[in-house]
């Protein structure tokens, strides 16, 4: 599962319409679909896209900047101050790309576990910022968060398999 040297790692890049269009589409769907499908709010498509681009590019700097941009875009649609999602996704983008350098994240099993862990980490950071920096009362329900984590991980396996088609080898 783990690599022995950096030479074994496949690093991918994406055409710019994909690099820009997919995150935008994810944010759009995240805002639009809850109007149609009530339970869609438990998914975090922008987070899944952040993780995917992070592990595929395997460049921590690109990963954190991608996460930051997607997070700030997501923040813009809320009424909360800008930066809450931004900070959380910056962390995740950085961690995902750093992890991509070290272990194989191409198979569905590792993707499932990885997405679940990143989702929980993202939620923890998000709630910490809301509580610690913004002083808001936040309701954390373990059952709900774990369930959402599993749902996101399952969706991620399908989504990542679809997005793999847009990968280009460097």
């Amino acid at each position, binding site marked *: 599962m783990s690599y022995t040297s950096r030479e074994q790692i496949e690093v991918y890049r994406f055409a710019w319409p994909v690099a820009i269009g997919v995150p935008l589409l994810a944010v759009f769907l995240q805002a639009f679909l809850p109007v149609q499908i009530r339970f869609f709010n438990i998914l975090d498509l922008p987070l899944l896209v952040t993780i995917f681009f992070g592990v595929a590019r395997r460049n921590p700097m690109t990963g954190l900047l991608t996460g930051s941009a997607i997070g700030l875009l997501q923040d813009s649609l809320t009424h909360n101050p*800008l930066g809450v999602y931004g900070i959380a996704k910056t962390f995740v983008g950085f961690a995902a790309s750093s992890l991509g350098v070290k272990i194989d994240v191409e198979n569905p099993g590792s993707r499932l576990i990885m997405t679940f862990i990143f989702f929980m980490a993202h939620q923890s950071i998000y709630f910490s910022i809301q509580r610690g920096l*913004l002083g808001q009362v936040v309701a954390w329900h373990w059952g709900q968060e774990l369930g959402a984590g599993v749902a996101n991980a399952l969706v991620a396996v399908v989504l990542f398999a679809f997005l793999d088609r847009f990968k280009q080898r460097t």
Partner: protein
Amino acid sequence: MDNIYKRHANIIVLSSVLLAQMLGLAIQVRRPADGGPLLIRTWAIATITPLEKAFIYTQHFVQNTWHDYFYLRDVRKENQQLREELERARLEQVRLHEDAAQAHRLQALLQFKEQYIAKTVAAQVIGTSGSEQSRVIYIDRGTDHGVHPNMAVITPEGVVGKVLRAYGSTSQVLEITDQTSGVGATLEKTRLQGILKGTPTGGTQLQYIMSDEKVELGDRILTSGGDSIFPKGLPIGTVQQVSPGKDLFLNVQVKPIADLARLEEVLVITQIEEREPSGPDVSGPLRASDILAERLPSVPVKPETPAPGMGGAAGAASTNTALSSAHQTKPASAGTNALQGAPVQGTPAQKSPAITKPADRPDTKTGVAKPATGISVPKTGTTTGTTITKPATNAKPKPPVKAGETTPPGH
């Protein structure tokens, strides 16, 4: 130096980006946006909302085409049902008209000012924030259509929220379930006033109701009008759960009447007018007892003989008082809220001639000295209606929090 930077470039960039965002957060919290929305918000909304509109309009076009031309199976049956419903509504309207006319006359007598919903704009819900922690929706009407921040947003069922930010052709609406929202609210039966706040879990809670007050499950909650955003008398929700809270207050959980999870169309109240109620000439020596006496023939109770020594209007007044007592046996929901078509209210005190002077009311619980009536809001276009009147006196002191005021940490 270069080596150090290269070796730790990732960590340095990560720290810089995080620090910049934290500083940005601190600035926003410290100094909420006073010069309009940030540019990045405007760009994001300008990018996302046109797509949402396109999808919604396309979806509606397809749905309407299907319903208007192909899906006509049960139309005849439905038409018949609607006709019967209309007949019932007409009968109800006649009765309500009488009540409303009486209320107008009394209001005119007491020189109350009424709030009229003079104009509304129908809007389509096109999107959400996409976050459980930010309960906002986007609608397809903005400043170009006369929508501005702090305007009330409702559905025919009840209150939805208020406009938080307005852009050219889009607006952001803060739902009443968001924890930063607040609405001035009144319990319909007891007229107790409090603040309806959203909770972190997406529910709503009526705050600042003293623990020694009686609140029953299922009690309806209306807007109190005290927040200067929502007109008085709009239905908000019903009491779902009551339990002892902290600091001598009750913990009253409220279920919103409007289904906020399935919103499609909403109405934005763009204009509220305040004016003296129209009615008969009140400059003359018209008294409440005279007005109430007008209803005597319609009351199916044997007219009482005026007590010895009491004649004329005084006698009428005393008779009427007795009849009002008879009216008091009616359930409290004897009136009707035209907004919902459901019975609304009619507390005994409202029917009593004793309301000739609101300050004289001994009941400190009621706070409101006159009937709250419903409003009539059509789905589209403008609307006029009477209904909502400002309380002249509130015997109960207002809670310390300003209702209707959003308190986001910063934007």
